[in-house]
């Protein structure tokens, strides 16, 4: 089967890619700017074609717990929301992480805190990469920077989720969710007919019963479990780092940016170079695990690193940890739902060069 070319919104691309990835279930609740995901799935009605279940839940809390139930049956299940809704899902997400269940959670980020704004932001970075709910855990976090990646990362997320028995988050934002671009859609995959051995599918006589829980009242056993998680996260850090570089080879000034900000900074690199400033861009694709090693080695050869994100400065902390004091690290970005423009980034960089 050939890939199919379409012009789609990022949100629609996620929905279509989920059907094509052979997802078994989607549970969601409407919230701007990501309602198109649920709307698209309802209209596509995949229950007639692939048998995928699509259900509008009574709340984000219910939706993530439906995901828990489905994931514990070994099924490919997902939910999506935007920032305030993701906050509501955090309880379910930590239980899912604690029960080591694979699933996909999409966050089409909008500005906060609180009800905030419905316009795009990147202010959920801490929540996404450092845990989000209570307890020691991590999600695997993928940051798409195009509609194409919105589609491609669905299948990748399920693959990683099942490989590591860990929830995966696609951390997008209102801009990528709402914008249309060309997207090559992968051919339809069949839904899996087999179940992982840990799944609760009804206990046949020949196997022990499967129990999905995140509870252990014995602190020593719980500590052993925590250590197991740490080992898993370390393995993920070792094997799953993904990033992309633009003109980093001769760069003297390095931008680090993900998602929409990375698209902005790509243009900033062009604008800066047109003015004789040798800029480059490193775009983390995985936010957990973070490309710390690569940023650390680039820090050996650049003069300044500028972390650009639509937040008050969250990812910049990871950049600083990666750089470990080797070069000055700055943060620049707009907030409140305003997307940083390429020339603003260049102007800020110039002020630092001149100022420095």
């Amino acid at each position, binding site marked *: 089967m050939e890939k199919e070319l379409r012009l789609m919104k990022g949100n629609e691309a996620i929905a279509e890619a989920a059907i094509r990835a052979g997802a*078994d*279930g989607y549970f969601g609740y409407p919230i701007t700017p990501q309602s198109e995901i649920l709307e698209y799935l309802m209209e596509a009605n995949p229950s007639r074609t692939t048998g995928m279940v699509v259900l509008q839940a009574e709340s984000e809390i*219910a939706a993530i717990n439906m995901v828990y139930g489905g994931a514990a049956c070994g099924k490919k299940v997902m939910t999506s929301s935007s920032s305030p809704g993701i906050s509501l899902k955090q309880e379910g997400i930590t239980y899912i992480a604690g029960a080591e269940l694979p699933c996909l959670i999409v966050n089409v980020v909008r500005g906060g805190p609180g009800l905030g704004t419905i316009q795009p932001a990147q202010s959920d970075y801490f929540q996404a990469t450092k845990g989000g709910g209570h307890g020691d855990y991590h999600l695997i976090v993928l940051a798409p920077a195009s509609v194409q990646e919105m589609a491609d990362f669905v299948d990748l997320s399920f693959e990683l989720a099942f490989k590591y028995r860990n929830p995966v988050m696609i951390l997008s934002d209102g801009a990528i969710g709402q914008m249309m671009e060309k997207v090559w859609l992968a051919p339809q995959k069949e839904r899996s007919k087999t179940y992982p051995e840990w799944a*609760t599918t009804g206990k046949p006589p020949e196997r022990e019963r499967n129990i999905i829980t995140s509870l252990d009242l014995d602190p020593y056993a719980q500590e052993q479990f925590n250590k197991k998680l740490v080992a898993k996260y370390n393995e993920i850090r070792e094997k799953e780092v993904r990033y992309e570089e633009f003109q980093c080879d001769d760069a003297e000034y390095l931008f680090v940016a993900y998602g929409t900000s990375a698209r902005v900074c790509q243009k900033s690199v062009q604008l800066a170079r047109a003015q004789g400033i040798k800029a480059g861009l490193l775009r983390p694709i995985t936010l957990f695990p973070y490309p710390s090693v690569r940023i650390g080695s680039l820090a050996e050869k650049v003069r300044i690193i500028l972390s650009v994100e639509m937040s008050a400065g969250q990812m910049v902390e990871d950049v600083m940890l990666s750089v470990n004091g080797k070069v000055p690290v700055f943060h620049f970005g707009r907030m409140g739902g305003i997307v940083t423009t390429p020339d603003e980034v260049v102007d800020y960089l110039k002020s630092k060069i001149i100022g420095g």
Partner: protein
Amino acid sequence: MAEVTGIKEIIKPENLAYKRTRIMTDNVLSYCPGCGHGTTHRILAEVIDEEGLQSEAIGVSPVGCSVLLYHYIDIDWQEAAHGRAPAVATGIKRLLPDKFVFTYQGDGDLAAIGTAETIHTCNRGENILIIFINNGIYGMTGGQMAPTTLPGMRSSTSPYGRDVKVMGNPLKITDIIATLPGTYYVTRQSVHTPANVRKTKKAMLKAARYQKLNKGTCFIEIVSNCPSGWKMTPVQSNKWMEENMLKYYPLGDLKVPPEETVQNANNPEKK
């Protein structure tokens, strides 16, 4: 003195009056003496076993005293977050519609923190069984006031008795559930006497069969006791339950399947 009879002598099949339910595990129950959970677990296990559902059953355990329920019955289990069991069960049943899916929840779990999940799951008519243990108190956390705590009833967070003007009224959630079109069979039972145990088991058997027939949500409330939380002996607690709880939460069916109503109308004696 007569010779002591050997233990093997006693448990000859012909001497067996009662035996452990086959699919109950050997784990020691974590419940207080006199608590209704143990009995309820047993009849649930009996129903699963007798209906041949062991290989199809997926249970969802709650947060509350029965949080460790998955240690006691030998089937596949999922442990849900507090109040979320109906949503979890929805996820399971939607993806594995042929399995026997049930939740087992206490009053705090089902009627306080999980009210939205309970109502909406029943309203969608999810084809699952919800077993609701109502003992009017938070047992696991040490006897705090529950949504179903009776007016004037003392608990650690209503030490002077539940003042309904300040703390609200006990929630008859089962009555609400019975009004929802998604529910098929809604009943209130108890397990404090052998006769009541038999009735409750019968209700569970019906619910299991209705689920096979995709009839919609079945909801069984079991009014129960909490000797520790109520600070009574088991016997006192059962008496108190009869005199107080059952007045507020009277036993009986709140919603009977339509065909059964028709049947009963045709055979008045059967009623």
